[in-house]
């Protein structure tokens, strides 16, 4: 009860989902964490065709964070449907398939293929904010019109929960958020990674092959929180906050700022069982603070 929240008929028993790209397809660390204790699992981004991803190096450490430029390496939607989906269906945890594409048509085709399987997934998270691919990716997430059009097209194809994942690399994220809402999104998630870069000064090469990449981890938490707050002022649909969460206080910050649920990303690499640990910390905190349901704190920040 402490954490109950429901979105499009999906019932969440933990506010902590695992973020796309930071938990694979849920089969790598099953020795270390009970996946069914997650609030939800968002898959690595799936594209129409298999993608081998960017050349290495693809990751670099930064102060309180990391850069990545994976380039959406993934087996493609057909393999996903054939080899991965059957296993995901067996999970009790709600699964969201994250979809990426280079053209509107690609997004639609991936969604259609998934819908045609009658997939028992809870819904879709649409990545319109990946900074690490040449075409598409972030391009969809920096323009309100494109965002609205894409959202509208996908909305037509599915009744499942449709979450648009927003990029922080824009002047006014609230405009993109409003466009996604207008297009018919059921919920929004924010933020994806922040464009960043790092150089190895000894050999004068960028630490990522693609030169720039996406910054994630604790370093971006204040940025993510500000964006989530701005979005929550601008839209009425549910909001999933993420960016740098690593403990229960971070989760509560996002909820106070207006999030309904959160995702944890980079922290999963250091602590594969973070989602369960933090859920426990939240439980204790709610108990101590007499919070019947954590969700009651949504947007309850007291402004001066």
């Amino acid at each position: 009860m402490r954490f109950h929240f429901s979105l499009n008929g999906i019932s969440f028993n933990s506010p902590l989902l695992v973020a796309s790209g930071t938990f694979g397809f849920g089969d790598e660390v099953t020795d270390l964490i009970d996946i069914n204790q997650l609030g939800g699992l968002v898959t690595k981004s799936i594209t129409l065709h298999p993608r081998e991803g960017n050349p290495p190096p693809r990751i670099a450490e930064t102060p309180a964070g990391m850069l990545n430029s994976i380039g959406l390496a993934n087996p493609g939607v057909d393999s996903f449907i054939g080899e991965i989906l059957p296993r995901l269906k067996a999970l009790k945890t709600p699964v969201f398939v994250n979809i990426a594409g280079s053209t509107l048509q690609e997004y639609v085709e991936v969604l259609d293929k998934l819908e045609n399987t009658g997939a028992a997934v809870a819904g879709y998270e649409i990545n319109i904010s990946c900074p690490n691919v040449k075409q598409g990716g972030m391009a969809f997430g920096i323009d309100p019109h494109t965002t609205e059009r894409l959202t509208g097209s996908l909305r037509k194809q599915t009744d499942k929960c449709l979450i648009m994942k927003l990029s922080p690399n824009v002047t006014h994220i609230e405009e993109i958020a409003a466009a996604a809402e207008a297009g018919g999104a059921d919920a929004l998630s924010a933020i994806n990674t922040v464009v960043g870069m790092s150089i190895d000064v000894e050999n004068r090469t960028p630490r990522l092959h693609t030169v720039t990449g996406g910054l994630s981890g604790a370093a971006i938490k204040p940025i993510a929180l500000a964006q989530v707050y701005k979005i929550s002022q601008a839209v009425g649909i549910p909001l999933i906050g993420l960016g740098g969460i690593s403990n229960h206080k971070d989760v509560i910050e996002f909820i106070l700022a207006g999030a309904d649920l959160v995702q944890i990303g980079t922290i999963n690499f250091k602590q594969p069982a973070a989602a369960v640990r933090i859920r426990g910390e939240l439980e204790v905190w709610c108990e101590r603070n007499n919070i019947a349901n954590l969700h009651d704190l949504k947007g309850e920040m007291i402004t001066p």
Partner: protein
Amino acid sequence: MYQEDCRVTAVRQRSDTLWEVCLYSPAISAAGRPGHFVNLLPAADWGPAMRRPMSIAAVSGDIFRILFKVVGSGTAKMHTWEPGQLVDCIGPLGNTWTGYERHFPILVGGGVGLAPVWFLDQVLTTTQIQHFFIAGARTSGEHFLKHEPHRGIWLTTDDGSVGLSGNVLKGLEAAIVKIQGERRTPKIFCCGPPAMNRAVGKFALKAGIPCDISIETIMACGTGICQGCAIELRQAVPELPPYRQHYALACKDGPIFKAEVLF
């Protein structure tokens, strides 16, 4: 795969540059095989985003050992460990060396790459599989093994201060000479800095000797999730999923790859 707070039971300096730490973990020790690594937190309150991968260098009973060199902030922190310290380790991770029973194993290690090779050496010795072992370093102070060619152990140093003067190829050549007439055909098991791996790999390819090389890349998750540890392959590896034929994952598809797919 296990995640455990492993107690440090001993710390000692093995050479000018190498430190050895014994870690108590029944689970990881029981499952660890040569080639495996663990991904650890240098401190319980480790701020940076990534763990630090370290090869398993030895196992005895419930204790496994690692060997490390201080190169940055993580290894500097590890250098402050004292017995009693608890170290959060995930492991064993990665693939392992195979085929050493069917071949005459020639082990080649350099720098911190010595760790997994040394583990293999111990396993082969224990199981009484005769093999050769070549360890390279820049100078004598970096070695902790003894140069004993009669027992199949060659050290090399760039400055000639101990063992053969030159790089590990000098040792490899000596070993190959000695192996003539052996029933078993040789196979090389190698781990070292990139230049050494390349030289040994090229040598093996030219000589037509099978060669498995353990490589190091930067890693975040160590478990195949983040896709950050990609390594470019020159040849497809049928066992891997199609989308990883060109860029394989060092942590999961490796860290050990055949020389022909790397070079």
